[in-house]
């Protein structure tokens, strides 16, 4: 194709984004003999879906903003297609985190500038009306009804700019599953993804090297920095500082890639916003002795189960975007379904067998269609401090969750057979394979046991939830932590109940909504950079 544009060094525009006002804790640490002290009006802890838009909005409102991020800054030009390298750089625990319970649930979250938005699949959906109604009517959270939230979703969408997928970027497995879902009357919907001209590379989970994904790294972070906010990377907050019943700032450590402390810092600020992902704020509050009866309780995890269809015909399973359609038809039952492109190394853990048995299946990787279901859970989860004083997550599936998971797996298997699979691999150690659609009933007959069930998740929420009363959540209905002035939460922890679909847009919208209140409060108190000593 000739565009008339010089091809020399031709790169997408995201490659030339500027990141001014950034300092790396690792560059500073060797020169420090005592903790480095920063002063700001507001400090935002974490730069992901909640933190980045809040930092930009606070800066728009004229506050002096410091954004602290435990991970490093990796720009579009730094992204590689090697999942191992990417996981070590950009994932917490290099992607090896677990939610303990029966069964343990594999969990992943980002630890880099832009947080999990840099490594997520880019699905960008508004909170379903049914869920908003629950927050408004059942939980009594004013301003959470669909009408009041409309404006916040619009603002979130101006940042995320969701698009549907160009047809030529959709790989064969995804197209086959969507066709099958249509034949079954499941009305698959085109995915809304925060991207601009996605090319269907499917490197989303390791950073988008084409620049298409509109993660916080290429949207709100450069915008906040250009407006004068300051970002310190490799800076892990360990504690919230307080003076009587008012927040005074935060204290933390400069950390290397392995999380090892290299130096210390303190920030004096009148407004502290925790936006560190639903695992971390409860840990920070507990470590800072800011414990409420519900701190860390009410964690929801959207457990995901997957099936893999084995096809006779080649599907070129590595080609095409990560996800293009979803089945929303069963969301009232708590089930969301989609086919997804999964790289071989990631898929391998869930393929049954060892050694040659495993290898014979994996040799057919390009004949595989992977589809997953996300369950709107009702089980009990919690974040507490582990023996190493770091946050530790536990989750117990409810009997309803088990029932819904089995129903979800059954539907997925039906869909994958309908798409033309010869055999289907299941997420059950005691029922790893269906040889034909005639065997689908074996799923119904399986005892509803959590034992041997393979689950993963990338969505956690609700560990510091917004609630009208303290006995239901540590944050008030505007994300402010009760019992201490000037401390707020802006990440997935405040979500009052599971959203039942990809949560990023809900997080952004709630963060923007709540942030307006914090700005009002800050200004009402004559906020102009005055700092309380710790």
């Amino acid at each position, binding site marked *: 194709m000739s565009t*008339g544009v010089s091809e020399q060094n031709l790169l997408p525009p995201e490659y030339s984004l500027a990141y001014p006002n950034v300092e790396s804790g690792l560059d500073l640490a060797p020169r420090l003999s005592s903790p480095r002290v920063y002063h700001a009006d507001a400090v935002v802890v974490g730069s992901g879906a909640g933190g980045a838009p809040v930092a930009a909005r606070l800066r728009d409102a004229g506050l002096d903003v410091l954004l602290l991020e435990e991970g490093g800054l990796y720009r579009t030009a730094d992204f590689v297609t090697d999942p191992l390298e990417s996981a070590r750089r950009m994932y917490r625990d290099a992607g090896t985190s677990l939610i303990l319970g029966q069964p343990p649930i594999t969990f992943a979250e980002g630890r880099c500038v832009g947080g999990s938005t840099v490594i997520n699949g880019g699905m960008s959906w508004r909170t379903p009306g049914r869920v908003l109604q629950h927050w408004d009517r059942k939980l009594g959270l004013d301003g959470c009804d669909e009408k009041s939230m409309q404006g916040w979703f619009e603002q979130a969408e101006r940042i995320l700019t969701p698009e549907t997928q160009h047809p030529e970027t959709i790989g064969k497995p995804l197209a086959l599953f969507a066709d099958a879902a249509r034949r079954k009357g499941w009305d698959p919907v085109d995915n809304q993804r925060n991207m601009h001209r996605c090319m269907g590379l499917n490197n989303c989970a390791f950073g988008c090297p084409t620049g298409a994904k509109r993660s916080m790294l290429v949207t709100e972070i450069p915008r906040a920095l250009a407006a004068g906010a300051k970002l310190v990377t490799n800076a892990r907050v360990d504690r919230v500082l307080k003076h009587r019943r008012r927040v005074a700032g935060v204290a933390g450590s400069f950390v290397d890639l392995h999380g090892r402390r290299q130096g210390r810092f303190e920030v004096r600020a009148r407004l502290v916003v925790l936006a560190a992902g639903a695992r971390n704020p409860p840990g920070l509050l507990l470590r800072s002795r800011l414990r409420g009866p519900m701190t860390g309780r009410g964690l929801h995890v959207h457990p995901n189960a997957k099936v893999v269809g084995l096809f006779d015909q080649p599907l070129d399973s590595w080609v095409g975007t990560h996800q293009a359609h979803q089945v929303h038809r069963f969301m009232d039952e708590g089930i969301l379904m989609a086919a997804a492109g999964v790289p071989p190394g990631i898929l391998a853990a869930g393929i049954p067998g060892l050694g040659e048995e*495993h290898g014979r299946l994996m040799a057919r990787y390009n004949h595989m269609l992977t589809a997953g279901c996300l369950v709107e859970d009702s089980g009990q989860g919690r974040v507490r401090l582990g*023996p190493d004083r770091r946050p530790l997550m536990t989750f117990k599936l409810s009997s309803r969750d088990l029932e819904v998971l089995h129903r979800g797996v059954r539907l997925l298997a039906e869909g994958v057979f309908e798409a033309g699979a010869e055999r289907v691999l299941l997420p059950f150690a005691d029922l790893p394979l269906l040889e034909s659609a005639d065997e689908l009933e074996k799923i119904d007959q399986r005892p509803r046991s959590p034992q041997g069930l393979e689950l993963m998740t990338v969505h956690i929420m609700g560990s510091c939830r917004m609630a009208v009363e303290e006995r239901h959540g540590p944050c008030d209905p505007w994300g402010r932590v009760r019992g201490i002035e000037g401390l707020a939460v802006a990440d997935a922890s405040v979500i009052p109940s599971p959203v039942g679909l990809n949560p990023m847009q809900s997080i952004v919208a709630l963060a923007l909504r709540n942030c307006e209140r914090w700005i009002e409060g800050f200004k009402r108190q004559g906020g102009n950079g005055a700092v309380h000593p710790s």
Partner: protein
Amino acid sequence: MAAYSPGVSWRDRRNHGLNDRVLLAVIDALCPHEEPFDFDATSDVLGELKSFLPFLPGALRLGLPAGLALLEFSGLLLPQPRGSGRQRFTRADRDSRRRTLEAWLHGGGIREAMVAGLKALSLLCFYQHPSAQASLGIDWQARADKLTLERARLLAAVASQ
């Protein structure tokens, strides 16, 4: 069948500590060796896997050496799956090691969690190995380079209109 095959030389084995020797034996048992994966990646996989260990959550990182030691001596201390003799894990042949790992993998508790974790990490490293990717006909980086340029062209064309 040799304790390790193909590929890890005696010199390599002598130079590795107990943890590494058990890990090598685990990787050798977990990964396939037959066509189309008939290349030797065991040492590379060990290197990649070890690069993940410092990132493991605290309890896992601290517990792993004890877990590996238990695996090494379980053949002498614990009842074994059918067909596996009473011997150290690293001295057992590949089939016996696979039987032991299968038994741990479906046995529940901490042993299951450890082997599931090792399976996930070893196979991640194995199937992302350049030789495995080549066997599967995958070249993600080349596709990334091509699509990045294509997107740049598309956006430049739009901008110049």
